[in-house]
């Protein structure tokens, strides 16, 4: 329902309409404090672990690097540098498996065992003295990308397009995916850094206020943040109803400030900037010292691991190593990088943890609701997907068109390109139709057609 004048969404418990309520399953890790693990023997650092152009290596094979040292530079504006997550030696530069599937060029870093691993790089900067433009450059130098999953370079989002002005910064602490608790623990344990980062973002964007949004299942986080806020602060914290995908920026904008981000535009079109909690916390930690992103918190969870928890690990840690530490010894399980709703399965256990990876989820065989086990039926027009889609699309019709390979009308008449692949529709579909999969195929087919035409 769209009635911005009244902002009806406020009446309905202050959230977006539609969406789903999958079992949260956060109990595995939500109470586990963030724990630092020892360094693995070897790190794998893909040059393209962010959206945009891959970084360009600054090091040669065999070169020694010190923890925190830049080892690859940004290649243009939509790109970020890469910093050494540990002290050691670059033993190789070669193609390695990546989370997204294809093998990508990666730096292999052999960690010096027994090294104190102190971060020596970086110097304090007086942020207030910098112009916004200089700050954007400073942000790029930290190598920050969206840690919420998209890994989109943060400094690009800080460059407000011409004609837009940002009045409100939204900090996304919803973590609506089942199982994951990274952002939750960060908010509880590092609330001060989070608020610091928020203030930096506000200053860069010239925003008058900021709202940290989280869900009602994380009230301890709300309390922790409130603790570090000033009276009458321009930063506030708000818990919105627990519902998937509350964390999608469009839904969050609707829930927190009642604004709808127009189709095909960015939050800046309605005066918003949306950043993930992990991104913002690192911003608060790294910016004052001008350091780079070298580690992140990862939730390793699911019934398939013995010691689930929230671990802080260097970027580049191979999954195999991490899973070993957490007590995963089973036969080939069901391993998902990210949450169960949007994350992807990984093809190789040699895939490393990248900046965008907030969680590793291991399901056991019997929880595996795989397509082979779940009998697929023709669409029975039950409309469950229509009632679930947070974008108010019509996945039923989209699915029927996709089934017949009619991809163009999907985009022309049924707004295929507004689908952000949250998976709510597939989740509820009693006929077990792989809707999201259909939509991905349709989108890429359409893209190819456009590319061919031009």
């Amino acid at each position, binding site marked *: 329902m*769209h009635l911005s004048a009244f902002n009806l969404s406020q009446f309905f418990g202050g959230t*977006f309409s539609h969406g*789903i309520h*999958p079992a949260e399953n956060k109990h595995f890790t939500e109470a586990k404090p963030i724990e630092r693990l020892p360094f693995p023997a070897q790190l794998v650092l893909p040059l393209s672990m962010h959206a945009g152009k891959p970084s360009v290596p600054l090091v040669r094979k065999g070169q020694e690097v010190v923890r925190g040292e830049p080892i690859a530079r940004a290649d243009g504006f939509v790109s970020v540098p890469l910093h050494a997550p540990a002290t050691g030696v670059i033993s190789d530069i070669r193609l390695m498996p990546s989370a997204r599937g294809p093998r990508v060029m990666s730096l292999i870093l052999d960690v010096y065992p027994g090294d104190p691993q102190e971060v020596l790089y970086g110097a304090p900067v007086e942020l207030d003295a910098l112009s916004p433009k200089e700050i954007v450059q400073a942000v790029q130098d930290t190598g920050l990308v969206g840690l919420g999953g998209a890994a989109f370079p943060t400094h690009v989002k800080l460059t407000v397009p011409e004609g837009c002005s940002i009045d409100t910064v939204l900090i996304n602490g919803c973590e609506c995916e*089942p199982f994951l608790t990274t952002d939750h623990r960060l908010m509880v344990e590092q609330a001060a850094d989070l608020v610091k980062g928020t203030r930096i973002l506000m200053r860069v964007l010239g925003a008058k206020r900021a709202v940290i949004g989280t869900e009602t299942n994380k009230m301890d986080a709300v309390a922790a943040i409130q603790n570090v806020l000033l009276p009458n602060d321009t930063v506030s914290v708000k818990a919105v109803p627990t519902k998937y995908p509350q964390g999608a920026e*469009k839904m969050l904008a*609707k829930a927190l400030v009642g604004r*709808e981000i*127009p*189709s*095909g535009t960015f939050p800046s079109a309605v005066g918003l900037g949306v950043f993930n909690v992990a991104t913002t916390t690192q911003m608060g930690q790294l910016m004052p010292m001008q350091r780079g992103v070298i580690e992140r918190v990862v939730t390793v969870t699911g019934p398939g691991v013995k010691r689930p928890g929230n671990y802080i690990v260097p970027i580049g840690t191979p999954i*195999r190593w991490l*899973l070993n530490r957490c007590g*995963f010894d*089973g*036969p*080939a399980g*069901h391993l998902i990088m990210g949450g*169960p*709703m*949007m*994350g*992807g*399965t990984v*093809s190789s256990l040699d895939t490393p943890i990248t900046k965008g990876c907030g969680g590793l989820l291991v*399901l056991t065989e019997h929880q*595996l*609701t*795989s*397509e082979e086990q*779940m*009998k697929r*039926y*023709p669409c*029975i*027009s*039950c*409309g*469950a997907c*229509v009632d679930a889609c*947070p*974008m*108010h*699309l*019509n996945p*039923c019709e989209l699915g029927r068109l996709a089934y017949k390979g009619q991809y163009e009308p999907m985009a022309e008449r*049924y*707004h295929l390109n*507004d689908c952000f692949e949250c*998976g709510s529709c*597939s*989740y*509820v*579909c*009693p*006929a*077990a139709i792989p809707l*999201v*999969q259909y939509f*991905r195929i349709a989108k890429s087919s359409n893209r190819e057609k456009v590319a061919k035409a031009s």
Partner: protein
Amino acid sequence: MSDPVHLKTSPHLRGAHSVDKIMRHVVYALMPICLFSIVQFGLSALVLILTCTAVCVGTEHFACRLNGRPTTVGDWSAAITGVLLGLILPPSFPLWMAAVASVVSIGIGKLFFGGLGFNVFNPALVGRAFAQAAFTVPITTWTPAMAHARFKEFIPSTFTFPFAAPPDLRPWMERLQIDGFTGATPLALMKFDYVDTESAKLFVGTVAGSAGETSSMLILLCGLYLAYRKMLNWKIVASVLASAAVFSWIFWVKDPSVYPTPLFTLTSGGLMIGAVFMATDMVSSPVTPLGVVIYGSIIGVVTVMIRLFGGLNEGVMYAILLANAATPLINNLTQPRIYGAVRRKKEVKA
């Protein structure tokens, strides 16, 4: 530790419902109604429901086999069609005609269009509408509820020889000393003789009518269970009942001596079973939130229109079939406004 073998795309979780589970629960929810029907009309109702179910399931099974495809009876939808069809036929309906209606239901109503999910009309109603047009007299021949010999003998027309006309029931009723039974349902009494039936009787269902349509209370309860389990769209039920009530209320207020009360409208005839179990057939109803309400309202209004002003005394079946026919148009016209759509239009203009 070997590499994971399951490569698939998100989402990796699934909700609790599946098509066969939903269908199975609908069959469960129909069981109390079947039971009541048997209590009320006896052996004939029992064999009627069994025949319809068996023939429906059998038709689907053999048609699949004939086409060299795996059988689809496992999704339970053919069973629903069969049970429902049995419930909406008169208890005295000859079994051979019920079998014909069942074959038409599944054959023309469902498989002809490609089977589950593709049928545009409600299969059970296709079967009944066919039977109503083909066997007009038998399908409007009613027998009294709670006849005392109902568990000892069948209604004589039940076992009519295939392709033969059913026998006259009057001698049988005379023998059973069912006096004063006019062979009329509450609706017919209302329409032709302006005789009202007690609402309590209608609610509980001890009146003449189709085998399973009489107890509006029981049907409503079973529907509530399904709605609670989220296996049926309560909005359709609500809009059918609300629109029927409002529309008949308008006329009742105008002239209470001729027009029935809204309560009578809701509890009499097949409106309740139609609204709860047949209008809600997902395949032949719209999917959009607004479309569902429009669809339900069409059913409610057309039903009352036919009942009050048409040549027939009951119109639920035709109303649902018409609304089924309008479903694609309703879907087209009520596409949800997508998130972020209106403003963009404004922007484009500006």
